[in-house]
């Protein structure tokens, strides 16, 4: 998000020489071209997917495309039972740690914010939460702990890495 908008704003010539990919673009390419194969029997538990604001709503606003479909496509390739939180996508909730607030001392406000995410998670009651963002990862883990909820949180690429079938 920051890098992309920075590049677009100050280094537009960058794109003449180089190509840039989001994590989703790469994973989709790897999977669809067969460069990686994933084990479909590994993730059979109920998995909830969380949309980070930066990849969704804000990318869409800033760059005209929100990454909603791609992560869901990736999940569908090897995860049998994944669900959305409600609301998800463009109207989804932030984990509560966006905007650099993870780095501020206002922890209380942050946990207050994350109650919304916790409510969403409780409604779905998943066995694993998957997301593609380091901030969200940290914040959601923290919020779950604060709420005494024992649900593991993994990166999208983490479960991809775990499901890799090496030949």
């Amino acid at each position, binding site marked *: 998000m920051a890098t992309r908008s920075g590049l677009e704003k100050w280094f537009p010539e960058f794109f003449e020489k180089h190509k840039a990919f989001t994590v989703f673009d790469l994973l989709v390419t790897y999977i669809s071209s067969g460069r990686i194969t994933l084990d479909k029997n590994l993730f059979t538990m109920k998995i909830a997917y969380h949309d980070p604001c930066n990849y969704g709503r804000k990318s869409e606003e800033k760059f005209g495309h929100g990454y909603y479909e791609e992560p869901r496509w990736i999940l569908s390739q090897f995860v049998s039972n994944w669900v959305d939180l409600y*609301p998800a996508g463009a*109207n989804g909730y932030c984990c509560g740690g966006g905007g650099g607030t993870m780095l501020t001392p206002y922890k209380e406000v942050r946990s207050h914010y994350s109650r919304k995410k916790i409510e969403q998670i409780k*409604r779905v009651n998943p066995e694993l939460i998957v997301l593609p963002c380091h901030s969200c990862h940290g914040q959601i883990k923290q919020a779950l702990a604060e709420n005494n909820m024992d649900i593991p949180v993994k990166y999208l690429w983490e479960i991809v890495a775990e499901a890799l079938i090496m030949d």
Partner: protein
Amino acid sequence: MNIHTVIAGAGISGIRAAFDLAELGHRVVLLDKAPSSGGILSQLDHQFPDNHCGMCTLLPMIDRDKGPQFCLRKGIFHDHVTFIPSAEIVSVKGPAGQLSVVVEKQHTGIDPLKCMACGSCESVCPVSVPDGFNEGYSTRKAVFLPVPHQIPNHRIIDFSVCTRCGECVKACPVSAINLDGEARKLEFNPVNAVILATGSGQYDPAQSDLYGFGVLPNVVTSKGLERIMSSSGPSKGQLFRPSDNKPIKRMAFLQCVGSRNLMENADHCSSVCCMFAVKEAVMACEKSHDDLTVSIFYMDMRTFGRDFQRYKDQAETSHGLRFIRCRVHSVEPCENTDGMKISYVNDKGMYMEETVDLVVLSTGKKTGLTHPDFYQNEGVFALSDTFDFKDIGESLVAADVAAGKAMALGGPPHTPEQRIFDTQRLSKKAMPLLVLCQCGNNLSNDLDLDLIESHLSAMPGAPQILKLEQACGAAGFESIGTALTSSQANRVVIAACNPFLFDHKIKALARDAQLPDGFFKTLDMRSHVTGKTKNEQTQSLLSQIKSTVNSLNLTLPVYREKRTVTPSALVVGGGPAGLSAAFCLASAGIDVDLLDKESQLGGNGIHFSPGPEKNSLDKLLSSVTNHPKIRVHPATCLTRHQGLAGVFTATITTPNAVEQKIPHGAAIVATGGGQAQTLDYCASQHNGILSVFDLAKGLGDKTLNPLDFSKVVMIQCAGTREEPRNYCSRICCTKALLNAIAIKEANPSASIHIFYRDMMSYGESEKIYTRARQAGILFIPFDLHKKPQVAVNNQTIHVTGFDPVLQEDVQLAPDLLVLSTGIVPTDNQIISKIFHINTTQDGFLKEANSKWRPVDSGREGIFVCGLARAPLGFQEAMDEGISAAMRALRILGRPFLETPQVTARVRHSLCSRCQACIPECPYQARYLDEENGKIMVDSVSCQGCGACASLCPNSSIMMGQFEEKGIMDSIEFFLNEACP
């Protein structure tokens, strides 16, 4: 047959325009894309303020025998109106007055001429899809009744879901189904005019991800709620939650869904949703006996109609509705229940969360609709609100305006049908003819017609019997005609199916036989096929035949008053409404006497500053003053008004105190109004305090200079929208916005604060509000209990207000304070007495029905419009003037008025003169003739509703064709059936 006008869209506006023209004697084709008439109103059962339907009020009231008088939601039946469902105009060519109109009629799969509406097709259809009529809360088949209560009740096939399995074709007993037909083209040529009244659609909230519509089952649209609460709806009128049919305890309305939203390209207000929501909330509370909490989340409650504010206040106090000024962000589900969570910020600026069982989305109008390519052709008139949402009353006014334009293109003058009656035949003893239809032998398994024949011949006053193989075809009617010519029969009962099919034909038969229409009765044989034994069904039919024959035998010819109409009109008041009424009437060839108490015509318009409004008024003024048919009486007062519709006499006093009598057939009251005064907010204590209208005038005529003002404060609803003047004056908000923009544009550094209660920028004027904000004008809402305070100290104006967003007091010392004081009517106290018409609590002239008869006074022949009736804008006033003129033309356009078949008559020997009936007559048709000490009925005004008859404690009222004797005898016959 010459078609005068083709009207596209059989919603309420289309129907009104059709009746307008039909009542002027023109023939009209009315079509609708949908397979039924009524538009959105076919789905809405209740309209505020009385929360009844009342659509039948729209039926023609003059010459009402031109069509049956029953529920208009069932269908449109009028001798001069041909309704074509599932049809659209595809092209309009030629010059106005000589148009060629091509209409495409969809193939609906079922031949209405063959169909007996038995429903066999529907019972075998294997398809099940959500039913649009119930907004998807019930299911229907591929062959279905689009509107269950409508007649003719032929089903249609929805080919988009039909699987073409052919089961229905096999099941149809009369081979009326054809799955392979194609759309047909119909051409009408020449046609004088085309009216487009195709209406709008509703915003689809499923396109937004905020409200969960389509995902959360208990999020419904306001129309969906209407269906849920409808007695013809999915839960038969019970207010249940769609997801689990549990009762609803908490309900939230979210206003402005799809309206007032730049992101949805909807910079408009949909005008009707606020009151719609309040009405639905009231109904929901009533249905659940107030065991329900309703919250309405709004930004501005747009109660801009004359009586809306009190309706809203009443709803708030009597049902405890909660009005919360906050737009809700989104709707979320609750954990483990079907409830939903809503968060908002309350008036204390606090974040609140609550749980509700049902969320109702007040969805606005659809955007992005486009007009057909012939939209701007000559002779094509689109309703001003074609794509807008409007209140019913306003839609009717718009329809009248369009009909007025169509009418102006000419057409044959109105020549009412002259009926001749065979008095000799009528004066004889009742001789009934009974037509028994065998329905092509289709009924032989269910009804024993021979048995009926033999029974009847033994009956006293036995009817002559004519058995026909099929009564409804041309041959059938011919046989009936022949039988009537060759016999002395003077009463006719037709026993067949689908009696409504006969209405039209019966009139022709009656005309030929020179008998009154009321001496013909039809009864539905098929309604006796109830699944009982053949003998039981036959007995049941027999009883009905006997009772019908008997009551018809007792029906006597009605005396018919024929009142010659004075073909001229009186218009009182020469402001915008009166002028446009006078001009419309004069253009239709009617002589007009136009009175104004002032020496100069123009009303409030004389203050207009140069601009489009002034131009349009000036044009109208010169047309009126130069029109040979209009006699202007300036500086003249009306002192007396007497008579009945068609034959009124006015007494006027001219400037030189001469009394003069003016006979006329109809009167239009447009006596206007003016700005109200207030004592609030130090109104007269500083010359920097002006009214919104005075500022507009000053800015217009340049007596005020925007550069003189650096700090401006405006306060809306000054002394108004609270008791005793608890109504919205409708135009002050827009005026204030325009004033503010004008100042800001000329003087960008000026700071402008507007204190408002609810910004009434309804409809397209929302754009002005948006523009004003973008110009940097600050808006601060206030509640009645926290009004801004104004003080004048040492020649300085001090305004202290409270900003609920900041939760802080705001202190301002403006050099200009502008008060929106509202509008009051001028002469209504006297005028209402002179005309014997009613006024509202606030002194405005009261129309007969704010929804369905917006410009009719309570008395037939007297019409009300303009500011005298309600606060409104210039264009709205002119439109109302035309509407009033169109209503007057129903009377003035015909040579005489005739008593219809069913009216109330007083049996003076029974009447005890208690006079209870007089105030209860909804048409003010009853009065006490003081000279003779008798209660009288104006037979032209009387609509035969029977309110008086049911009220009269002495049974002294007879309704034509519903005489007590006949009814008692019918009861006898049915008792005979019930207790043999």
